[in-house]
């Protein structure tokens, strides 16, 4: 980074001078800074962070979402309807882990989802990106086709795959001759199959998304690096792994974070398939069905949400740590 490529020299030099302290700004500029930061910050705090923190607090209550909350402790052994909006301690967490039958399957399914994304969907997307980036014939067309699923609405994806998977009328069962009532494969209803069936849909969408992000990264790689490697006699495979991949570290991290977050946030495909029951339980769906359902168990759902939040914070922190380190090193360069 210091002297390897000529492109980095002016950039580094620019960083040295780039940052100007607030004190050097005129009064009017200070107002501009305050507004440019202030309005988005207010929005973000009010509509994202404040609700997130409130959810953490709600997870210690028992509440059906109606009426007001109090700081009274819940009474033991009293019908639920009289025991509303009260403090419930860690009972919600306890119940989730012990008697809520969907909890552990959901955790397991989230992990499977994550594994499939890391081992299959994301590498596939990266492979697409690398091939397309080599500028082969029709790359623009391939890129558009593979990105297509990312742009489709949820309802359409649900309908599309219902046509593929339907037991008696679907394309797959008809083609393989398993569509009669005695031997039909119940792709979306069989709890041992449906997670994998939905993961095919998820991969179909995720690979295109990763491809686009990775393509963006590849385009930013200095062509002279590759040129140098090719001159040295490296083939395409070696060039990628020895030269391009290491340089792509920041993008690789972004892709990893996107992969992990998308597998934790996975919700819509499962929800459109069967509302996330019967083999398709995921944490996000459990949160939704408890919080947004007809009868709300807000405290309980919030506790599940906090579990999801805590798990999400792991990749978020890793990612931020990386970003932060880069930022810090840049600042050091500058001083």
């Amino acid at each position, binding site marked *: 980074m210091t002297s390897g490529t000529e492109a980095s020299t002016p950039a580094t030099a620019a960083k040295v001078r780039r940052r100007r302290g607030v004190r050097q700004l005129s009064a009017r500029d200070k*107002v*501009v800074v305050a*507004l440019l930061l202030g*309005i988005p910050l207010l929005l973000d705090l009010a509509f994202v962070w404040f609700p997130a923190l409130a959810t953490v607090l709600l997870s210690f209550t*028992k509440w*059906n*979402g*109606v*009426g007001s909350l109090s700081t009274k402790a*819940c*009474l*033991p*052994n*009293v*019908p*639920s*309807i009289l*025991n509303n909006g009260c403090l*419930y301690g860690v*009972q919600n967490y306890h*119940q989730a882990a012990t*008697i*809520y*039958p*969907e909890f552990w399957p959901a955790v397991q399914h989230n992990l499977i989802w994550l594994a499939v994304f890391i081992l299959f969907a994301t590498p596939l997307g990266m492979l697409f990106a690398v091939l397309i980036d080599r500028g082969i014939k029709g790359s623009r067309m391939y890129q558009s086709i593979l990105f297509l699923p990312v742009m489709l609405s949820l309802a359409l994806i649900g309908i599309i795959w219902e046509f593929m998977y*339907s*037991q*008696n009328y679907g394309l797959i069962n008809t083609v393989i001759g398993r569509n009669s*009532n005695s031997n*039909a494969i*119940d*792709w*979306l*209803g*069989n*709890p041992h199959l*449906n997670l994998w069936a939905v993961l095919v849909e998820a991969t179909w969408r995720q690979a295109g998304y990763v491809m686009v992000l990775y393509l963006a990264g590849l385009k930013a790689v200095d062509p002279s690096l590759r040129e140098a490697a090719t001159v040295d006699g490296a083939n395409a495979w070696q060039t990628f792994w020895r030269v391009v991949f290491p340089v792509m570290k920041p993008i690789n991290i972004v892709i990893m974070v996107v992969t992990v977050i998308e597998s934790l946030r996975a919700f819509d495909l499962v929800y459109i398939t*069967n*509302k996330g*029951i*019967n083999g398709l339980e995921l944490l996000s769906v459990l949160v939704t*069905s408890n919080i*947004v*359902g*007809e*009868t*709300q*168990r807000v405290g309980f759902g919030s506790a599940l949400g906090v579990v999801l939040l805590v798990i999400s914070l792991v990749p978020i922190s890793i990612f931020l740590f990386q970003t932060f380190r880069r930022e810090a090193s840049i600042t050091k360069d500058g001083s």
Partner: protein
Amino acid sequence: MSDVGSSGTNGAGMSPSRRSLLRGIAGAAGLSVVGGALLTACSSSSTSPGSGTGSSGAAGGPVTFGSNYSDPGVKAAFASLCTAATASTGSKITINTVDHNTFQTNITSYLQGTPDDLFTWFAGYRMQYFAAQGLALPIDDVWAKIGSNFGPAAKQLSTGLDGHQYLVPIYNYPWVVFYNKSVFAAKGYTVPTTWDAYLALAKKMKADGMIPIAFADKDGWPALGTFDILNMRINGYDYHIKLMKHQIPWTDPGVTAVFQHWAEMMPYMQTGANGRIWQDAAKALETKQAGMMFQGSNQVAQQYVTDGAKLDDLDFFVFPEINPAYGTDYMDAPTDGFMISKKAKNVDAAKAILEYIGTGAAEAGFLKTDMWDVALATGLSVPTYDAIQTKSAAEIAKCKAVAQFMDRDADPAMATAMIAIIQKFIDDPSTGNIAALQKSAEDQAKAIYTS
């Protein structure tokens, strides 16, 4: 017609906001900042025409009616009911139709947010639950006028836990075993009246290469009906109600018996139910691939009408007797109706509309378009009834008591838990699994009903 009216209102209501937002962005290009530009743009556009939204609800203004009657058949019937109500009361009605699944899942937020004056809902505990939360308006004065039109059972179904009335019913419908007359005639099948005869018939159908019992549970709720009917046939109505209120534990041997009977029937039910929507199961009956189907007439008969299938070939029998002590005395016959939200703005007009809907004439009018439900008003003769409706009314009248449905008689959170449990049972109806599922149901019931 009402849809057009309401969308026009919204269009007028929203356009200033968009204009001011765009102006705000445009303003930001100059010296002013986004926030300031927004504020000035807002105040100046308040004088723009068309910002009156009509939701102020002055007496005589339109009454808003939140409706989950989103399927084409009932949607049309509901629209004609509203037209008749407007003609009778002089109050305009604006219908807000929401897909029924979405409507139901969002009911708590809906009623606490900005609900319509009137809304469609269900009788029984499912109504009582929301009334007890203070989300509905008591309508005892409406019932004082319409009470004589209904029997005591209908009034009971409309009464909250506090003894006040909250709902005006419009129709109910039976959960029975449907079949095609032509198939029974061609194959020489006879209607079974006992459990053994039912299983024997199913066996014969299977041998004839048919699906004996069309079955679907992708949405989770249809299979609850099968649980209910087995429970009422084996253990009776009182047991059903006590179980729904968790006065009997889910680990009770009575519940085991229900699952065991179901397991006996399972080889004759359409496989892969958890991946099939009930409409597809009904289609299997319609196309005569399946011999029978246990489901509400509101679903099966309605689908026959929508698909243009031969409704006069469709017939049904009540689920056969299992325990002679209870015979065929009970069934699920869910009642739907209308309520006034606590936050209603146009209460007087809304009550007037309910008074109209609570008459035999209004029900008969509604059932001219709706050809699968039956009226609740006592002694009402509806000349437009088809064979299914006539038979439905007669069978419901024969019952000593009718239940509403598991998701209407129990705490809805418990019904949700049972949906998952019954789907697991459908996947594995073995004895060992039954015990495990009963234990899981009881553990969850404890958490849901008490703390």
